[in-house]
């Protein structure tokens, strides 16, 4: 199984999970994570993944709940979800984060309804970004494999759950070249799970009791402190990883050709690949551009980003999320990192619901940033005609119907109808 393979991202991740010797895997299907859990299931059934129970549960809420019970009882636990599933298990996500249980979960990033949409964006991870989990974003399927392996070690050392985010379809369903490590390598890197807290009759205690106003703030401070610890631990673990596996696939942020760059793009996940192509093309034409990919979104590496972006004049944040009425969530955090600088920060909302992000569109945006012509916030590749017509149409008549279902109908015809 190990070595270089041309393989679907999901199946590569399934193999990586299996190499980490999880003891309890619980799954509820949702596009686009299904192939991952199916892959792990097959490995359990065929005996390739030993001493692991694969439990089919009745909802995502149950899936993470089973993982919580298993982890609290001392077993290495794993699950995967996306989109609506993350919301359905949201209460449990906060529970695991608050209790500090080292569960690892894959998120196959997918948009959240309404409107329902099965394609990629980051709204699902963003919805729970402050639940106390560590959130790592993979740029490639190789990185997805490598981050999962690091995730277990990180989670268990810190006693904190980790979600590894990989773009749905773009990564999960893409066949690409991936180097799958050997069991010996992973065993050398990832020791057996040693719990900080565990349900054990030999040493009984109560876990998860109510905490009153007199101590709650302190408990929450310690969760905050744990995220700060993670900022130190993530690069450390990355260095150990490099030593064992021979490649750099880790860390908090990654800079690409930012030396002397006036314009720097920042993004999470797979779009960074396209961005690097754009940087190379623009550099070849003499433009001073670079990019930074953020691997660790939580903890958010304020200091590291300040250093990585500090010499730029314009920072363009390419966001696969939307805070309606405001802009992008990543840009807000970037602004905090760059708060004492005169750097111009722009939000570009792109790729929502799986809309492709093209080199051409990105090139136009980065060039515009260089010319100082970008608005603070914009939607990439927005069809202005459609939205303008819909705004007019819905103002003209009260019962204008559901937006999504009407938006692509002939605007002139619907307005005429409304006027009759």
């Amino acid at each position, binding site marked *: 199984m190990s070595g270089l393979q041309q393989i679907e991202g999901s199946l590569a991740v399934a193999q990586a999970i299996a190499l980490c010797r999880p003891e309890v895997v619980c799954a509820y299907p949702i596009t686009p994570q299904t192939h991952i859990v199916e892959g792990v299931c097959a490995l359990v059934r065929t005996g390739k993944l030993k001493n692991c129970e694969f439990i*089919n549960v009745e909802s995502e809420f149950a899936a993470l709940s089973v993982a919580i019970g298993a982890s609290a009882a001392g077993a290495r636990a794993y699950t995967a979800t996306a989109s609506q599933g993350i919301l359905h298990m949201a209460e449990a996500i906060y529970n695991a984060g608050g209790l500090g249980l080292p569960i690892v979960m894959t998120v196959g990033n997918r948009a959240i309804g309404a409107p329902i949409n099965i394609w990629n964006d980051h709204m699902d991870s963003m919805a729970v970004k402050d639940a106390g989990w560590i959130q790592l974003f993979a740029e490639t399927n190789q990185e997805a494999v490598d981050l999962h392996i690091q995730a277990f070690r990180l989670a268990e050392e810190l006693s904190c759950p980790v979600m590894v985010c990989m773009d749905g379809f773009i990564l999960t369903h893409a066949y690409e070249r991936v180097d799958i490590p050997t069991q010996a390598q992973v065993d050398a890197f990832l020791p057996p799970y040693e719990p900080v807290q565990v349900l054990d009759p030999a040493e009984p205690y109560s876990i998860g009791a109510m905490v009153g106003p007199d101590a709650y703030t302190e408990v929450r401070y310690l969760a905050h402190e744990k995220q700060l610890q993670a900022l130190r631990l993530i690069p450390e673990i990355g260095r150990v990883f490099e030593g064992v596996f021979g490649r750099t696939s880790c860390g908090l942020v990654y800079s690409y050709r930012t030396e002397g760059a006036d314009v720097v793009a920042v993004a999470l996940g797979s779009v960074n690949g396209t961005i690097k192509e754009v940087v190379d093309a623009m550099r070849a034409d003499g433009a001073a551009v670079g990019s930074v990919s953020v691997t660790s979104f939580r903890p958010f590496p304020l200091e590291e980003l300040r250093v990585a972006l500090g010499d730029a004049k314009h920072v363009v944040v390419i966001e696969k999320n939307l805070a309606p009425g405001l802009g992008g969530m990543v840009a807000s955090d970037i602004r905090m990192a760059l708060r004492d600088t005169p750097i111009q920060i722009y939000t570009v909302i792109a790729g929502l619901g799986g809309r492709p992000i093209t080199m051409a569109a990105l090139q136009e945006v980065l060039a515009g940033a260089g010319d100082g012509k970008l608005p603070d916030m914009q939607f990439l590749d927005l069809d202005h005609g459609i939205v303008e017509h819909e705004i007019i149409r819905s103002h003209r008549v009260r019962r204008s119907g559901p937006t999504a279902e009407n938006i692509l109908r002939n605007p002139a015809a619907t307005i005429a109808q409304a006027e009759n």
Partner: protein
Amino acid sequence: MAQDSALQRVKFYQTGTHTVGNRLMDEEARSVQASMERSNAITSGHRACQGCGEALGARYALDVAMRATGGQLVAVNATGCLEVFTTPYPETSWQIPWLHSLFGNAPAVATGVAAAMRRKGRNIKVVAQGGDGGTTDIGFGCLSGMFERNDDVLYICYDNEAYMNTGVQRSSATPATARTATTPTVGGAPGNVFGTGKNLPLIAMAHNIPYVATATVAGLHDLEAKVNKAIDMAGARYLHILVPCPLGWGSAPCDTIHIARLAVESGFFPVFEAEHGRVTAAHKIRRQLPVSDYLRPQRRFAHLFRKGTEDSEGVATLQRMADANIERFNLLGERKSP
């Protein structure tokens, strides 16, 4: 943490006169609670109301389970009265490993604990606990999932027939006509509506799980026997215990056991056992009491009898429900023992 305080032994006065009175019985026939050596899984000092049926039931159930498993037991607890009154921060009255799940996922969390124990090769049994709200309402989906997978968990529902911890709101286990904060005794149809009812023990049986039983705090030996039997079995097991709540039911704290007995003897709460979907045993009623005998001592039913708001039809419907239970479970046949 455990090193701070050694496990607390039972103090003599804790066992109370009912159990001290067991002096007349053979030792083997005495309840586990009567023993000074009981595990004291829920030690004294918890904040339950005076006369709390749930505290009584849980204490009995868990000490039996601890004895039967030699102390190899973990408890998972849904949010609710039991969870709240046993863990007044920063204290806990639990002397066994205990995990508070969330409100709606105790069955699923317990499933995870059981799976972990298997993976670790540890023969440790798992008990999941919740009130009626956490079991019949918000936890229903997870419970059904646990049943369907036949996960190795004993689930105990302490049924006080409303969301008591949050101030007595109606749950799907609240009996028709009962007063709660969300089914107040005002307006044209006071109290809880006559719905179709949600019989969790029957629903559990419909999943064909290895063991389903009902019990009350009026039959404490019976309760202990059922937990003792259930804890040793494998697979999904469900125990539904009627635990009167003096606060929510409006009954006297000293009447908790008495009222539970009235529920049983009127047929309103049938006590039975079932295995794989079939009733295997039922507690026979010595002498059927009219259901109004059960209703009258509880202020939550007072409006049914109060001048001006009498509802003889409501009472008659409740009587028919009790009669239907008696027929369905054959509760009036020959008793096999005294």
